[in-house]
């Protein structure tokens, strides 16, 4: 607080508690109930206040958290977890295997818990063998057991058992938020702020600081201003446009990298045909030219991904090849060679395939002359950079004689035209993902066409078989090989063009706390890894 207004009602230069780190974000948690929460801000708090059996590290690997040692039976269905000694809940009760078994059972019993319930779908039975041993029996062996346990936070049985599964469980606000993690809940004002204090008795990672305050601000621009004026010490999000100016501030450091939950922007081609069109909901009005691989390849050659990243994201993205993001570590196939940006090759592909501009209006027609290569191009109106990307694509593809009719749609309207009705030509949308590649791979399987998860209507028996194979392959190396092969098929068949994988930008003040983790693969300064490690600068 250098500049201060000295007027009667100002309390200028109010002393800041030295050990309090103030974090600014533009969102806020939806609820403190780990079962019903949806927003990532809520999960940020859960990670700080609760422990789970395993933790997702910033390098993308999965490491034991509450678990000390674990083993799995020969057939992969019985998992035995031995818990760490000394874990305590914030109210002083010890955390035992009974709490773990209770929590996993609880998530399984509540079918309308959005995420947690899904993670338990293969759990057959859970039992506490003794005070520190938990046995989980699966209905079938799965290759990604550990990633199912990342977000199943361990709840105190002595509190949650009074809220039995059903409406009592979903309506419980959990304002006290008793967990066993490195921070304790002290005060919560919904939509305004959250105060957490350090749990100095944590068995493994007691924080150095005393308190965290998360404050919600109106927009990302205001966040940048709050960091600049020193009203907060760290911001979890910011607009790409502020990067240059913050770089010049000597007291601020920027951190850029893959987000904790890796995300992908995808350009979706409607490739449904009369065989694959869903019987119930399908309208399948896609442009016939998009069924031709030559056309999709030409569009790929005409897409200058680097320019898109430069202009629309101000350089903060990496060019993409498939639905598996570069932030997914070993699952990302880094050996693939993308289609090079080469408008001439694109023109040649279209010429050779018979798509010529015979009436000289600058837009090519189908080989039989029936229609123009003019595509409806939709995007959701809640994606900030999308209009710029659409404009750029319209220019780039216009150069090879392909016309786009651009239109932004409300996400709800977009869902209606998208899938499973397939009433579009091209949509630009996106996904963000769990650490496990299973879901992202399922998006292109034939089984998902009628459910609405498949956005393209792409159907390839070879791909479907590989999908089934990776879902049951327990050897990580072998599974990785299959997953890589599936990405090669995606790129070869081009149901999507992937313009980029987004990057996360965060920033912190260098004059208040030291020890932020800035060199990991993933960027998450709000992760317990940073917040338990930082120290106040004297």
């Amino acid at each position, binding site marked *: 607080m250098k500049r201060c207004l000295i007027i009667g009602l*100002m309390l200028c230069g109010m002393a800041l508690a030295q050990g309090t780190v103030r974090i600014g974000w533009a969102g806020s948690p939806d609820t403190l109930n780990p079962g019903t929460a*949806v927003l990532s801000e809520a999960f940020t708090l859960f990670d700080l206040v609760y422990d789970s059996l395993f933790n997702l590290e910033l390098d993308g690997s999965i490491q034991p958290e509450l678990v000390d040692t674990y083993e799995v039976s020969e057939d992969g269905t019985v998992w035995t977890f031995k818990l760490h000694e000394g874990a305590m809940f914030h109210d002083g009760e010890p955390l035992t295997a009974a709490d773990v078994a209770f929590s996993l059972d609880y998530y399984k019993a509540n079918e309308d818990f959005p995420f947690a*319930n899904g993670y338990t779908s293969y759990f057959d039975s859970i039992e506490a063998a003794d005070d520190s041993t938990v046995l989980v029996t699966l209905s079938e062996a799965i290759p990604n057991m550990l990633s199912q346990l990342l977000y199943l936070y361990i709840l105190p049985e002595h509190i949650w058992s009074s809220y039995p599964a059903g409406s009592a469980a979903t309506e419980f606000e959990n304002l006290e938020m008793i967990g066993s993690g490195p921070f304790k809940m002290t005060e919560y004002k919904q939509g*305004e702020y959250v105060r957490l204090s350090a749990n100095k008795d944590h068995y493994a990672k007691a924080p150095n600081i005393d308190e965290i305050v998360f404050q919600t*601000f*109106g927009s990302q621009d205001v966040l940048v201003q*709050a960091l600049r004026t020193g*009203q907060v010490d760290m911001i979890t999000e910011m607009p790409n446009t502020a990067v240059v100016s913050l770089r010049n501030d000597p007291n601020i450091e920027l951190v850029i990298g893959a987000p904790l939950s890796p995300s992908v922007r995808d350009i979706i081609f409607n490739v449904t045909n009369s065989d694959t069109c869903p019987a119930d909901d399908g309208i399948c009005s896609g442009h016939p030219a998009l069924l031709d691989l030559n056309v999709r390849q030409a569009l790929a050659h005409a897409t200058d991904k680097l320019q898109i990243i430069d202009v629309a994201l101000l350089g903060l993205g990496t060019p993409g090849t498939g639905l598996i993001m570069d932030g997914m570590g070993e699952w990302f196939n880094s050996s693939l060679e993308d289609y090079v940006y080469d408008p001439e090759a694109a023109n040649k592909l279209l010429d050779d395939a018979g798509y010529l501009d015979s009436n000289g209006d600058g837009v090519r027609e189908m080989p039989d002359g029936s229609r123009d290569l003019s595509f409806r191009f939709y995007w959701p109106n809640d994606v900030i950079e999308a209009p710029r990307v659409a404009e750029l694509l319209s220019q780039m593809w216009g150069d090879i004689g392909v016309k786009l009719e651009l239109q932004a749609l409300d996400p*709800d309207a977009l869902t209606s035209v998208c899938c499973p009705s397939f009433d579009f030509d091209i949509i630009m949308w996106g996904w963000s993902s769990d650490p496990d590649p299973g*879901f992202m791979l399922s998006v292109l399987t034939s089984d998902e066409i009628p459910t609405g998860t498949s956005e393209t209507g792409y159907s390839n028996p070879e791909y479907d078989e590989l999908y089934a194979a990776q879902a049951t392959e327990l050897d990580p190396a072998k599974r990785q090989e299959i997953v890589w092969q599936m990405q090669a098929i995606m790129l070869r068949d081009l149901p999507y063009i992937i313009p980029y994988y987004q990057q996360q930008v965060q920033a912190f003040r260098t004059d208040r706390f030291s020890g932020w983790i800035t060199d990991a693969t993933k960027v998450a300064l709000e992760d317990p890894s940073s917040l338990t490690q930082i120290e106040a600068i004297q």
Partner: protein
Amino acid sequence: MTKLILRKLGWALLTIAFVLLLNFFLFRVMGDPTRLLKDPRLSQATIEAIRVRFGLDKPVINCFETLNPIKASLNACGVNPFNTQFAAYLSNLLKGDLGVSFHSQRPVAELLTERLWNTLLLIGAGQILAIIIGIILGLVAAWKARTVLDYSALVGSLTVWSLPTFWLGILLLFWGSNYLGLPLGGKETIGSGLTGLKRLGDIGTHLLLPTLTFTLVFIGEYMLIMRSTVLDVLSEDYILTAKAKGLSTFQILKDHALRNAMLPIVTIVALNLGFTVAGAIQIETVFSWPGLGLTIFEAVGRRDYPVLQGAFLLLAVSVVLANVIADLLYTFLDPRVRLA
């Protein structure tokens, strides 16, 4: 007199009943909120379970499965009219239950009362300042008509009146935080542990910029109306008489001009309440002021119907009531209304 009040109240009740109906249909046109849960981790069965929890699996109203214009269909006419979202809405309202927020799963009534006071504080401070300053400016400008003072007040008022509220707010926010060190958001310093007067001072610091924005945006209108009304009044014969009697300028303005010019101001203040809310939505969003406006803004983005319905009902009732009060105030300000 009693008859007049009863008639006014009757109309007010009718208006509120109409708002109740409109309220229901208005929000359902936006579509199904569970559609926003497009997330790889969600299974179809889970989404279905969530829809059941909030009653979204039922048809909106007899004959209409949904009111989303793209998906609306007439195939649900056979359903029991009492097993619809509309029936549930009405019966809950009769019980005084505003429902549970889809987003935070908290009771709407609790959510709204928590934030109502903050908005009243902001609107109250902003409006009172705007009214007082606007009236004084208008009076002075009319008295000094066609002088530099009048023209600068006029141009100034027109300028701030035509500025977009959110834009003015953002400018003030950046200016105030940069040069005056004022806070960028919130209602008070979090965890400051302040009490009593010091805490009030802290809240005042946070309230300063939003109130300033509010005042600037509304000053123009009050000033312009005051000025033109007073100009009218000043040309009346009784003002000439007053001058001839040797009354001071202050007395003429206070006792003769102001009293007569109050009628249009009362009308505008009451009518403005609706716009005040629109202003509050923008200002609270810019300044992260935890009030009703911010709640509405957030709820729209999340399609949180119960919150929107509750907030709109609350606002509609207050605007209608404000107008009833304005009508009744006339009878005291202007004896002619009483006779009519």
